[in-house]
């Protein structure tokens, strides 16, 4: 649908509104109908079919999604951002570099379709395109696993092997993918070093608690030492009610501590667990959920190499109507 509507696409990239410091309006698409209908009053909510995020930077963009601490949502972020990018029309290859404890295939519901992995490719048992698992829901999304669980991993698999894989993806016949997302393992061991080797940019996933922040700061330091300068963070599992009660660090506090640009803020959502269990990423849910929307927005910003200019801080009570007394 999106491709068929491409001729309507606004070729100009979005520009920031000088009167508005916030992020959301900066991405208000310029619809063709809006100026015709109400030239002086911008419509706040219209169905958009005629705009696609403008891909910034050189393709393929090799993005590593890392955190340091385990369990903060690296794999969930990889799955959801990856499928959001695929929905936006970009070709994506997600590499599960979490070799020992891979889970990305489960989150995507592709666990039964992983027949070959990179280890078999390196051993010469199969071709690279055979190891790529194409998602049937969004055919421009592909998954690549490094090895099968419980298989012996040769020590030789390291950064160089992953660089070879990325180069092979660039050189394949269909053309290079737009995005190569690397799901990094937790910790800063050999797996981490392997995962960050081919990356040009990094997405740091953290939760607003001190343990995660300390690890995130350390990992950011290691990434910067390794020459990855483009680091953005996603603050995951944010609860606005707890922030309001000052039981949780706010996103702005986290940003103050880490000093990183914000790619997204993902609110805590019970749907995340359900979608994980189902093997159906959150961003494909209908109706969309709060966390799913936040992931989509993060993916949009990733495409445009943009960052958040405003964050949601607290929940405001909705204005009650005239008939609220009667339950209206």
């Amino acid at each position: 649908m999106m491709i068929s509507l491409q001729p309507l696409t606004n070729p100009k990239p979005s520009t920031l509104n000088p009167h508005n410091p916030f992020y959301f309006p900066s991405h208000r698409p310029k619809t063709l109908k809006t100026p015709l209908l109400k030239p002086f009053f911008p419509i706040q909510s219209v169905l958009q079919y005629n705009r696609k995020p403008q891909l910034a930077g050189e393709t393929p963009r090799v993005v590593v999604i890392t955190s340091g601490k385990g369990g903060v949502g690296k794999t969930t972020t990889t799955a959801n951002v990856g499928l959001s990018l695929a929905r936006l029309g970009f070709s994506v290859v997600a590499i599960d570099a979490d070799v020992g404890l891979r889970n990305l295939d489960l989150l995507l519901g592709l666990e039964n379709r992983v027949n070959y992995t990179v280890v078999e490719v390196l051993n010469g048992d199969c071709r690279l395109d055979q190891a790529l698992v194409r998602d049937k829901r969004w055919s421009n999304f592909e998954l690549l696993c490094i090895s099968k669980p419980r298989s012996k991993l040769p020590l030789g698999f390291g950064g160089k092997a992953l660089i070879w894989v990325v180069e092979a993806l660039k050189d394949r016949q269909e053309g290079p993918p737009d995005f190569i997302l690397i799901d990094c393992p937790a910790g800063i061991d050999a797996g981490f070093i392997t995962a960050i080797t081919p990356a040009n940019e990094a997405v740091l996933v953290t939760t607003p608690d001190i343990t995660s922040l300390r690890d995130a700061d350390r990992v950011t330091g290691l990434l910067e030492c390794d020459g990855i300068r483009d680091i953005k963070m996603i603050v995951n599992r944010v609860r606005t009610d707890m922030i309001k009660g000052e039981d949780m660090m706010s996103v702005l506090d986290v940003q103050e501590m880490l000093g990183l640009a914000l790619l997204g803020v993902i609110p805590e959502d019970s749907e995340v667990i359900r979608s994980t269990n189902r093997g159906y990423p959150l961003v494909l849910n209908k109706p969309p959920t709060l966390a799913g929307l936040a992931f989509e927005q993060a993916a949009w910003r990733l495409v445009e190499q943009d960052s958040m200019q405003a964050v949601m801080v607290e929940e405001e009570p909705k204005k009650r109507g005239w008939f609220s007394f009667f339950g209206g």
Partner: protein
Amino acid sequence: MASLWTLQLHAASLPRCYSSTHLEFRAEVGGFCSGFRKWNRNKFVDGKFVLRALSDPWNVDEEHKRIDDQNEVIIKANVARGVKSQNPLIKLQHTVASLPPVIFLKKKHFSISFAAGLCAVAMLLIVVLRSYLARKSRNSRPGSVADLVRRGQLRSDRRGISTPLKYEDPFNNPMVKVGKSNSTVEMCGKLYRLAPVTLTKEQQAIHQKRRSHAYQWKRPKVFLKEGDSVPSDVDPDTVRWIPANHPFATTASDIDEDLAQHNVYQKHGVPFRIQAEHEALQRKLESLQNEQKLGKLVIDHGAAKDFERPFKSHLKSEDQVEQSSSNSQMSPKHTNSDSAQNSYLNRPASDEMQKP
């Protein structure tokens, strides 16, 4: 045919005061031909009431009727076929006629409402049964989605969510609405206040500088297992030591199944790998100890204490605590407060000693 009998019997039970239209109606209900209806009306005009037991309604014209003045029902049925079935019919009609009229009237009233109710209930039952059967047949339709789900070919929980979403822009869609003043955003029906991000480029640079000071790190170039010797042309900072119990090391393919089967080094039930690990660790420990001894020989103690002051004092106080605990174990007269006091008293002395 049965309905016809019933109708006929009912008509017989009607008292005289019934109008002809009623009878006509009943005849219509019976669904008879118009000739029969006419015949019925004609008979009633004469003030006679006839009950006819007919086995075949289409032979009406061929039949002959007799009506007596005493309101007695005379039944004469001339049925061409089924002569045997006449007798029980006549018997039945006799019994019906012999019933007392009051009771019969009451019964009639009851039966009308009862029949209406019965019809309603039956209709309801039929509707429910039909819908149930329809649902059942829909579920059991081979090749349907439900069938696929039952057979495990399709995951039921993915149904209904496989269609793509109707919007493409996550910032401007029915679920996300930015307020007019740009200070609020409504997402999924909840209204949130927006706060601007205040991080500046200078702050980012300061943080980068802080991290570059805090985390001195070089990308490891060489990964070595424990026991391997460091090559001479490699910077020791870029060597990454993989511990022996690391999954990467333990899944290394140097121990294959064949070796595991014919492991001559396995003695007294200790697996070779564990023994090797133990020996490697032992070697490492020894080498570390040797290094420390060498270091102690080289490094001046006075200079070292400057750097290790908090560490040392901490150690000493721990020693003190251990001593005091052992003392308290040996002599129960020593209380905890004494030991605390001891440590408190000893601490300034040690600090003084460590001061140059």
